[in-house]
């Protein structure tokens, strides 16, 4: 195995926080594609997406020391920071958001039924919650989280009342939160 080959799931952020230059490099390789994918969907323009990705990684460098693997996976932590930055950037330019990603294609090919390898336990938990929800609620959640649509935009897209959209989002996220919290409090022994 080469010196810099990153084929493990070992957390990188503690090493980034310690100032390891190679960990920084690996972190970009490991998480850059997912951050870029998210940013493209939650940014008004490709140029904004590029600026956002730079901002996100600066945020990752700043907060790397806060990552605690007992509380969740590194991938979710990075996604959390990415979402936080992107949502902050979207506030105030909500009306400009016009995603260029084809929604139907994205949903059909990358939806919950996707068999992409996903090793993060909490993502798997979330996926199971998502799979048990009514299809329309799954769609509402995806339109909001993955495409950054507003309540009104989702309502127009799905022909649902705005109030229903809000409720579906709130309940869906709260449900995942409750499940993850329960597992954090009673961690499963992965060795058993």
């Amino acid at each position, binding site marked *: 195995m*080469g*010196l*810099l*080959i990153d084929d493990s799931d070992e957390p990188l952020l503690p090493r*980034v926080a*310690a*100032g*390891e*230059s*190679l960990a920084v*490099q690996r*972190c*970009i390789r490991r998480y*850059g*594609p*997912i951050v*870029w*994918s*998210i940013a493209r969907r939650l940014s008004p323009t490709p140029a904004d997406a*590029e600026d956002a*990705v*730079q901002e996100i*990684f*600066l945020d990752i*460098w*700043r907060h790397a*020391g806060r990552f605690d693997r007992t*509380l*969740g996976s590194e*991938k*979710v932590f990075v*996604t*959390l920071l990415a*979402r936080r930055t992107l*949502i*902050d950037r979207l*506030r105030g330019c*909500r009306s400009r958001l016009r995603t260029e990603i084809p929604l139907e294609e994205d949903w059909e090919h*990358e*939806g*919950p039924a*996707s068999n*992409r390898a996903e090793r*993060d336990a909490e*993502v798997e*938990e*979330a996926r199971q919650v*998502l799979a048990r929800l009514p299809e329309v609620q799954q769609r509402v959640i*995806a339109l909001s*989280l*993955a495409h950054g649509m507003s*309540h009104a935009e989702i309502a127009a897209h799905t022909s649902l009342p705005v109030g229903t959209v*809000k409720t579906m*989002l*709130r309940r869906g996220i*709260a449900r*995942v*939160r409750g499940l*993850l*919290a329960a597992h954090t409090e009673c961690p499963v022994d992965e060795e058993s």
Partner: protein
Amino acid sequence: MTNPTRDRERLSDLAVDRMLGLLSDEDAAEYRRLRDRDPEFDESSLEQAAAALHLATGIAPETMPEHLQRRLLADGMETFGANPRTRAVAIAPDRPRWQGMAGWLAAAACLGALIPMWLDRPSHTAAPNPPPMASNSSGVPRVAESGPDARPTPAGTGIAAALAGSVAGVSDPVRDRARLLAANHHLIQRAWRPGGDPAGLQVSGDVVWDPASQTGYMRFVGLRRNEPNAEQYQLWIFDATRDERYPVDGGVFDVTGARAGDVIPIKAKLPIGVPLIFAVTIERRGGVVVSDRERVAAIANTT
């Protein structure tokens, strides 16, 4: 009269809206009021759930543009380069992205072990995806050769890029190198040292590389003159943004033994993000796709 359970549920709802960037001005006031009354409410767990749910919707990772990867790496190196053990970092957000070469150079310190590793690697471990060499198999560049196609992919738009472009058609590497040095304050410039092969035992000189324009020059003094019909020198560039097993082919060249030193333009076959090590090997005429690394004449690393 307040109802803690109901308030908590309402706060959770509003926190979700806020987290999605969808909190209205009216609701924002209510959110702040409820939040102040419930300081133990764990909002970060909602963010974590949203992040997990977001990933669960099935995000397909996408390849970032190469220029963005380079920017991120430069940012990272700059962030940690000045003080590698610093945890808290402070970066001016509007600082030019290509400043701070000292940060870049810090990365090479971590690759010190790479040189012996690369040199020791047996030839049969050839790269499965080696850098292309087709353009090198014929029309091998000589010191005197240059021209519009002599430069690798230009990536920059700064002064150095403009300068490099303006002189690209003129075949005078010595003058072009001097101009590049004079016009650019962010060049990487490192001295050559012997790589172990007898041909390079007396080598000195330097390599200069401008990341913005993707332009560079090698200046050799004391590197043994080669016999072009038998063997030629070949440059390899280790790029921190690429798989370190496969250094980028920097071009095949000959050394004439000019008294003032040979100046040779670098002809990287791929864009270089963060050059860490420049290594010159001796190969058969026309160069090779994958070096067996048996004869290393000169090395310059950025540590």
